[in-house]
């Protein structure tokens, strides 16, 4: 609780991770599926003696290397920076449990990056069979990165009872494999593998759409059709994998997907349903557009249509990643740590001793005294700002608009008591702290929602 808070007004720190992560997933999953695409395409070209394919694959592998080697790596490191700043407590838990997992991951990253470069720069310079072997090494290493990171990502949603039983005892790493092969590991791996294969096809459509259909009709037709097949195969698997995945998610969290069926009311967490619906419609559209405009009419297939499919895939990826993140609510690590970084087992202690007992991040006046307002501000940043901003994403001023001080106080009391029948319990963490903490947060929020004529003293001194 002594980490400084990374305050990002309007956007919210969670969206910093979100934007980088969505961008990264689009590329990193291409890096996995695209490796196999190049490999099988090269093998097919060799077997069938297609020199026109060979030349096109050289161009595609340059595109592949640029996209994955530059934007994939930069955004991957960006996620690390962002999660470290936004969720230091959760990042700490992950590092303590998966440090060797991550070490292995980084080894595979290195192999992946090197072989991707070797693969591109050795076209026509080494024996074709050896070149194909380089492709196999790349594909294997990139698949290994997915196999490992999938364990860590799914752990955050469903860490599993075995790991939870030892969590906080110092023996967590002894249950590494239980945490790694957690309940959603296999369905998630199947789901992500299928998406990787389909994304390889989506990105390949971008480069194959640029082939001049009038000059090279046979090349364009065969390559576009072959690329579309990569989409079709994956979209057969995705619906079943998604159902299996959701089946393994705890029922209470799965129920979050249904909150928005009958309402768009503010503060009801209905957005998850709406965003999840986008996955279905965008995925179905990708299949429809790719089949009708690419597979059935490959010669006329152009770059703008390919970009449209790519943007739809980006939309589906964004909706999927957002929904997956939201399914974790009210936790950031299922059953162990709430989304605001408070560990479930520490809530009672915080309620007794106060949220700010060890905090260094409270504004103080020249005499070293904090005010109720400044303590409330520190509590807001610590307990609320990982999900809320004042005026932007999930804006607290708008959500509490129309409430007076007594009304805000009773609302916070409800969050603090966290009764079993509280509707907010389904997606929000409890408000941890003493009665004074609740009062301080009330003071701060009331000032934001119903600003007084004069500013509090400590605020004026800032």
């Amino acid at each position, binding site marked *: 609780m002594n980490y400084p808070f990374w305050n990002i007004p309007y956007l919210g720190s969670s969206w910093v991770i979100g934007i980088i992560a969505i961008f990264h997933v689009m590329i990193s999953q291409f890096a996995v599926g695209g490796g196999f695409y190049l490999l099988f395409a090269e093998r097919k070209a060799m077997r069938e003696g297609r020199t026109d394919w060979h030349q096109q694959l050289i161009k595609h592998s340059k595109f592949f290397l640029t996209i994955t080697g530059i934007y994939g790596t930069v955004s991957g490191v960006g996620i690390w920076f962002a999660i470290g700043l936004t969720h230091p407590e959760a990042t700490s838990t992950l590092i303590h449990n998966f440090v060797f997992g991550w070490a292995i991951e980084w080894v595979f990253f290195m192999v992946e990056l090197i072989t991707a470069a070797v693969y591109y720069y050795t076209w026509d310079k080494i024996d074709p069979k050896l070149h194909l072997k380089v492709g196999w090494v790349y594909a294997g290493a990139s698949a290994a990165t997915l196999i490992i990171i999938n364990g860590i990502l799914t752990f955050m949603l469903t860490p599993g009872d075995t790991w939870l039983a030892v969590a906080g005892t110092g023996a967590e790493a002894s249950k590494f494999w239980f945490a790694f092969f957690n309940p959603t590991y296999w369905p998630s791996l199947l789901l992500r593998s299928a998406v990787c294969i389909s994304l390889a096809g989506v990105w390949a459509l971008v480069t194959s759409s640029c082939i001049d259909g009038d000059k090279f009709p046979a090349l364009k037709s065969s390559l576009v059709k072959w690329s579309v097949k990569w989409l079709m195969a994956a979209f057969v698997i995705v619906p079943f994998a998604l159902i299996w995945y959701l089946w393994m998610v705890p029922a209470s969290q799965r129920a979050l997907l249904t909150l928005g069926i009958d309402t768009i009311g503010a503060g009801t967490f209905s957005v998850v349903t709406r*965003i999840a619906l*986008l996955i279905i419609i965008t995925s179905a559209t990708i299949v429809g557009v790719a089949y009708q405009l690419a597979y059935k009419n490959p010669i006329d297939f152009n770059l703008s249509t390919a970009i449209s499919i790519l943007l739809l895939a980006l939309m589906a990826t964004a909706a999927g990643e957002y929904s997956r993140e939201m399914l974790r609510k009210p936790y950031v690590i299922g059953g162990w740590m709430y989304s605001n970084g408070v560990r479930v087992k520490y809530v009672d202690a915080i309620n007794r001793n106060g949220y700010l007992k060890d905090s260094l991040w409270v504004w103080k006046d020249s005499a070293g005294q904090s005010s109720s307002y400044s303590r409330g501000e520190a509590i807001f940043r610590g307990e609320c700002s990982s999900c809320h901003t004042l005026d932007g994403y999930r804006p607290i001023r708008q959500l509490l608009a129309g409430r007076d001080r007594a009304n805000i106080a009773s609302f916070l009391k409800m969050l603090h008591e966290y009764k079993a029948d509280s509707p907010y319990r389904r997606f929000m963490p409890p408000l941890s702290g003493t009665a004074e903490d609740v009062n301080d947060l009330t003071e701060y929020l009331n000032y934001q929602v119903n600003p007084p004529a004069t500013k509090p003293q400590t605020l004026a001194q800032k």
Partner: protein
Amino acid sequence: MTQIAAASNSLYKWVDERLGLTEIIAFASHKTVPAHKHSFWYYWGGISLFLFLLQCFTGVLLLVYYRPGIDAYESVRQINFVMHFGWLIRSAHSWSANLFIFAIMVHMFSVFLMKAYRKPREFGWFSGLALLAIATVFGFSGYLLPMDELSYFATKVGLQIPTALPWIGTVIANMLRGGTEVTEFTVERFFALHVVVLPAIFLPLLSFHLWLVQRHGNALPPEEELKPAAERKSIPFFPNFFRKDLGMWLISLNVLALLASVFPWALGKPFDPLAPAPAGIHPEWYFMAPFEMLKVLGNWMPGAAGEIAGLLLFSTGIVLWVLIPFYDTTKENGRRARNAHYFGIAAITLLLITTILGYWTI
């Protein structure tokens, strides 16, 4: 599999004998659409049509629960906050209404700049403009139906505009309102207008417009017309263009789904005729440009002079716009054709600037 194929073949044959499907497909296959670097603009008519069909579909579903009159607000509240996926239908209806008008505008400006209003397509131009005008009346009448605070006051302000007309202005305004004030009677009138009167005018006009498109085909932009016939490219309407059209429809559907999901259409407070108008009240975006122009002219020329100048400016602009097929008639790109082109660019620029300025100064 063979049995299924045989069954579907005999079904097709049965329908074909009665409806002549093969003839229709053969006719559509012979029809061609020009293929050039401006072909993208050909899709906007189809996108407008698709959004209109969505309007009909979602509108019919809303009719099931909507209750005009005194219950209007409560029924929309139930749709938004009680009915399963009611919010989705309402959001899709409201967003597609806005996208519909946007798509028609893009279609109109692309037709203007590609000079597709020239002989023999004059009636296509006139009917298209009439469809746009009716679409904005659809928007205005639909806006009041939820009867929340914003729609009430926006309609109240909007219905004051006809009163500026001498002699008949007040009579028209009172007739539309169903009295001297906006009340539940106004909602009932607007509802009848929205779901019966306007569709009854719009649908035959739309059929006429589509028939003209079918009859004359897609117009070539001037630079393509200058090319020798052998250098011009085209694709069959069926299945090539039709397939792309459907692809654009699907993409439009996704844009709509994205907007409806991320920004579901909100419902404000119930209207209170005794309450003061909320701050920042403004018309819908497609009326923002004339609203802003009137405001600017009113600042320059206070009083009736500003209103008259505004009315004259709009009337002249609209008349010039509507009558363009009559004074830009030749195929060659002479001085008159260039002036018409500049007029189009000036109109688009003016609309954009005044719309942005309007939102900027709310």
